[in-house]
């Protein structure tokens, strides 16, 4: 099969795009800019005809698994269906062609959309204020932690520790570290909940707050929120919720009412905006009254039906985005919420939870279920039994590729050995879930009957198992540097 790099298609003199003629008098570059500022050797960018550029990238696209192809149950990633209408709406010229420095009176629709999206998210999460700025969940975490830091600073104290359960997303400790916090890990109980004894033991006057993912990465709802709140209140520490799993809570729980002070929301997870092969996402941060004055500037305010960007926020932590956040993602999330509406959102959660439980019911015998607590929108199995029979979680994942479905997230969370973290989302049909179950059962049989087939998998993919260690050893991350 054809599989070239765009650079290998390049041939001197070919053209992929024609620029317009210059309709003003043309001067030489060096007549307008002193020579010492000029580049003397052109970048050796590809020279490829338009037809070939199109074929190249179309071909590359077909090598990807994607939501519109088949099941994509990556735990914690919420690979749900991305409604096509949202793409159409985000592409409206009245949104797409707006310069961010346009005067407010000429962007009232954009500001209103952002304002209303904020109001909707506040209503859904039960918080009283919000910033839409953070460009992704991890930046939302950073923002939330800066708010917590500010809270303590305003009280004149230096708090240095963030508590993070061992089931947390990897970004949680990383974000806390970037804010200059030390991380203390809190153990989970056998039920997958926060170990209250461990929590109490680790909570002292150095603690700024705790970061909880709820439901946790085990897909388990943390039922001890009131108790955790009480522990935090003793030292006036705050509670941060990683909202990556908000998908599981619509209509059931509003985090702002359960003791949390601040949370981030992944619009590209819970609110169905596309993942774009790794972004852009969007990570708004909602807070309660304790933190609202510290939100990043600008915020959008409404005055007599007109909308404004308010920069004059003396206690703000500053800005985390060059402009106002990922506006085109807001358009999609806004459309999604408005289309589903008041009763549709709770249905999303209902379907997501039922789908997860339906899978779990059929797989919990086949695999080990280390945490048998009630499952929300996702759950974690262990392939320990299979590993003993010769095939690791990784092998099972690779073999699933041959069955045309994407494997679950594997080896995460770290507290489950041979973890397989499965999130079907509400979009999937019973039939698709059944195909997944059958595939796993078949692979399980293959382990006994034809182990090599599993260990050598995948067989039907564009490339087979790739040498990741070799990639590090013989590092080649730049075509031109490598060629030199």
């Amino acid at each position: 099969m054809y599989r070239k790099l765009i650079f290998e298609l390049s041939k001197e003199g070919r053209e992929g795009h024609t620029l317009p003629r210059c309709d003003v008098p043309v001067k030489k570059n060096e007549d307008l800019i002193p020579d010492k500022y000029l580049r003397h050797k052109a970048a050796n960018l590809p020279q490829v005809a338009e037809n070939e550029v199109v074929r190249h990238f179309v071909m590359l696209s077909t090598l990807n698994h994607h939501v519109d192809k088949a099941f994509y149950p990556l735990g914690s990633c919420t690979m749900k269906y991305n409604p096509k209408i949202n793409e159409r709406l985000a592409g409206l010229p009245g949104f797409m062609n707006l310069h961010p420095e346009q005067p407010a009176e000429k962007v009232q629709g954009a500001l209103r959309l952002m304002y209303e999206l904020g109001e909707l998210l506040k209503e859904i999460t039960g918080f009283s204020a919000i910033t839409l700025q953070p460009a992704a969940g991890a930046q939302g975490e950073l923002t939330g932690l800066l708010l917590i830091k500010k809270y303590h600073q305003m009280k004149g104290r230096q708090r240095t520790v963030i508590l993070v359960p061992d089931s947390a997303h990897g970004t949680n400790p990383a974000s806390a570290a970037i804010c200059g916090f030390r991380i203390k890990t809190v153990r989970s109980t056998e039920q997958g909940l926060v170990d209250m004894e461990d929590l109490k033991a680790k909570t002292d006057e150095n603690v700024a707050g705790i970061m909880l993912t709820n439901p946790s990465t085990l897909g388990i709802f943390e039922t001890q929120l009131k108790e955790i709140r009480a522990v935090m209140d003793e030292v006036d520490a705050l509670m941060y919720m990683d909202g990556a799993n908000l998908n599981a809570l619509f209509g059931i729980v509003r985090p702002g009412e359960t003791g949390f002070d601040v949370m981030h929301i992944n619009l590209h997870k819970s609110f169905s905006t596309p993942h774009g092969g790794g972004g852009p996402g969007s990570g708004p941060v909602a807070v309660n009254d304790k933190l609202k004055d510290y939100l990043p500037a600008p915020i959008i305010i409404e005055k007599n039906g007109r909308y404004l960007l308010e920069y004059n926020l003396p206690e703000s932590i500053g800005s985390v985005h060059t402009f106002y956040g990922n506006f085109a993602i807001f358009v999609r999330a806004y459309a999604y919420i408005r289309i589903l509406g008041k009763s549709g959102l709770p249905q999303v959660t209902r379907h997501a939870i039922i789908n997860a439980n339906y899978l779990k019911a059929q797989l919990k015998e086949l695999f080990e279920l280390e945490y048998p607590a009630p499952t929300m929108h996702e759950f974690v199995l262990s392939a320990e039994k299979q590993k003993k029979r010769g095939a690791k979680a990784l092998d099972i994942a690779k073999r699933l590729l041959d069955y045309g479905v994407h494997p679950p997230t594997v080896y995460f969370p770290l507290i489950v050995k041979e973890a397989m973290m499965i999130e079907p989302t509400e979009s999937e049909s019973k039939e698709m879930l059944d195909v997944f179950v059958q595939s796993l059962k078949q692979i399980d049989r293959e382990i006994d009957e034809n182990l090599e087939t599993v260990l050598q998998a995948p067989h039907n993919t564009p490339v087979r198992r790739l040498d990741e260690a070799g990639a590090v050893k013989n590092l080649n991350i730049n075509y031109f540097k490598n060629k030199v």
Partner: protein
Amino acid sequence: MSYWSNSEQDIKAMLKTIGVKNFEELIANIPEDLRFKGQYQIPDGLSEMEAQKLLEELAAENLPLIPFAGAGAYDHYIPAIVDEIASRPEFYTSYTPYQPEVSQGNLQVMYEFQSLICELTQMDVTNASMYEAGSALAEAILLALSHTRKQTVLLPATLNLRYKKVIETYLRHMDVQIVEIPQKHFTLDLEFLRQNIDDNTACIVVQNPNYFGFLEDVEAINQLRAAHKALLIYAYDPISLGILKTPGEYEADIAVAEGQALGNPLNYGGPFVGLFSARETLLRKMPGRIAGETKDVDGKRGYVLTLQTREQHIRREKATSNICTNSGLLTVRAAIYLSALGKKGMQQVASLCLNKAHYLAEGLTKLAGISLAVEAPFFKEFTIKLPVNADTVIQQFAQKGVLAGVSLQHLGLKDHLLVAVTEKRTRQELDHYIEIMKSILD
């Protein structure tokens, strides 16, 4: 509208398989006092058709003006193939390539994108993107601080103020001293720099062309910083590199840019895409994902995420950065843009911007009372001094459907206007701009 697949009949069958009577049983563990008991106070759901009408009405409340504003967001032409390809669900509905065997499309594009940006900038290594320029610069400084283990950061007043605010937010909690280098004649004050740079300086950030559109004397800056082993963080405009000297040639340690100009719409400021390149020596501390070439078990060429030990899902609190989701789809667009324009096209687009910007500047400065803020070389953006208040001018232009530029009022320069000209502005539009300005001044 609903986006779940199963009908109530399916649900019934599934609940039976699960072994519960109803959905409520599945969430019975959630304590009553944590439950939300009401109904959302949000409107009823809409059909797709109603939603389209609603959003079209919102879009119609915006009036896209013909933009002569830049300041970090530029109205360059987007070739049709960029939209055509990037709108394929194969790209936009996929995610991080955790399973490289079924993600070779995204991985190869990442590798090509990295290579294209390296070649454009003449830098050694490039990551698979950051959110946007502001936070990318902040991360560059974090890297410089970590690498040099020094505490002072020099930020010139000629840096985009919005970038500066993001940087300050990222650094606020740290034990770092930010020294602002003032501008002199709308470029960085070299004398001040000379006096303030020292061996404790971790890095200096230079934006070139700078916020005002003018070119900095990077060579002079470079000599000063080299003497103190401070890193050079170089913020560039990727379009400008069609003709301007590269960060690589200026021996930048880290080069950062806003990549929106490379085939991405303005989108009222986001999503944008931060371009992040560095010297090879900084690679292991570089934030963000990186794709690398390797082979599969059959010896076939393939691509994987590499150097992941820098990343948070493995290193957790010891990661070089917390960035995870980035701007993947915008790098696909940038890769297509750079591939389509190619060697010649990137020179041409830069040259068009250059000529048109100078045509406008010349036309404007012929008007009584208008002058360039400084007689310095510029690329596609420049600052003019007006005989009137810039905000008023902007308002009057807006009434004619034109975004005149960005006012520098926030810098205390009420009568200064920052004007950008891309290849999309026709001579007719440039002449029209001059006409409007003339009529305002008359």
